[in-house]
């Protein structure tokens, strides 16, 4: 049980990292990672939404969608959108500073593919509630890790002397490629 849970957690966190190995949530990965603070805060907000989604998806799969599996995608997206709305209202009420900093990227969590991907894979892999929550935490921390690393590299990049041509997306993608290569090293953990 414990071994299984920790395997789910670490494989999602490092080996199948949502951003660097599965190419999920790239919009925010390239969009907000200019400052370290916003990077990890968005990661935290994402983790929170991921965990809530995992619970909601488990409820949907167990009690609601058993008779109508073809409504899966629609049901998931509606639930995710409402969840993000609730989180947004809560942050606006209790953490107004964070709310201003995240700005447009908070509602955009709805269309972050990582959230819907989690909902869909949790269903196809048949995870139960506990496994689902561990999967969500692993995925969320993986996202946070990737966002923070990328933001810290890009903060350094601002003062570095790079050719004008590479100042935009090109160089950022090549850095992402190197990070992804580094994370591939974790794949060995699976066989060991």
């Amino acid at each position, binding site marked *: 049980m414990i071994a299984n849970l920790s395997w789910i957690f670490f494989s999602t966190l490092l080996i199948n990292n949502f951003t*660097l*190995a*599965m*190419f*999920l*949530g*790239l*919009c925010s990965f*390239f969009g907000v990672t200019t400052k370290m603070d916003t990077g990890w805060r968005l990661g935290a907000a994402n983790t929170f939404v991921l965990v809530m989604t995992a619970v909601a998806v488990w409820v949907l799969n167990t009690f609601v969608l058993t008779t109508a599996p*073809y*409504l*899966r*995608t*629609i049901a998931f*997206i*509606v639930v995710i*959108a409402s969840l993000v709305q609730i989180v947004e209202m809560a942050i606006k009420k209790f953490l107004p500073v964070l709310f201003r900093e995240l700005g447009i990227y908070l509602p955009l969590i*709805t*269309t*972050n*593919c990582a959230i*819907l*991907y989690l909902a*869909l*894979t949790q269903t*196809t892999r048949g995870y139960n509630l506990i496994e689902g929550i561990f999967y969500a935490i692993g995925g969320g921390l993986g996202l946070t890790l990737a966002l923070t690393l990328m933001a810290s590299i890009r903060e350094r990049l601002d003062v570095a002397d790079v050719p004008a*041509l*590479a100042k*935009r*997306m*090109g*160089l*950022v*993608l*090549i850095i*992402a*490629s*190197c990070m*992804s*290569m580094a994370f*591939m090293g974790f794949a060995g953990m699976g066989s060991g």
Partner: protein
Amino acid sequence: MTAIPVETLEQAPEPIVPGAPPPQPLAMDFWRGIADDNPVMIQMLGLCPTMAISNQVSNGLGMGAATLFVLVFSSLMISSLRKVIPNEVRLATYILVICTFVTIADLIMQAYSPLLSRTLGPFVPLIVVNCIILGRAEAFAGKVGPMRALADAFGQGFGFTLALLIMCTIREVIGSGTFLGFHLFGPHYEPQLFFIMPPGGFLSMGLMFLTMGWWGERKKAKLAGASK
């Protein structure tokens, strides 16, 4: 196919919607999506599927077709219903419309091409959260008539497929030495597996952006030189 009365909607003079794109011939609406305003290479939208499934040309074709289908039908539907949808809940409505067509595409793919459906896995339902489709609905289809929305959807859809195919070709030819499964270089070619793995996706995309940027700069310099 289209039972929606296009004419009745078009007859009334178009009220000026704030933020609506300026009137243009249909061909321009179509062409813009392929070249000047390509969703992937210029607008940088829909990067996730472009990198995630571009390790084989066949995947790219399947994904491009599915996205084109969803984009065309949801744009048509949203544009036809644009006067009925209240402004406050338009995004939720758009997502529901898109989601319906994605489910249809997913079920069709599962029925007629189960192999492709298995390879693409969750990336077919993930078309729902592809920024290109919601972006077009918000920026274009929700503000113009159905004909222009259709032209734009086809343009953006083909533009996306084109970018996808360029990526797939680079990655499959270098990474497996094949094109659509045909071996290109004979038995002595050693496939560069790096390119079909995740880092190869980021790298090919980065090189593509650098090339596009270099090309754009060169064009600009040439124009500046000509005007002098």
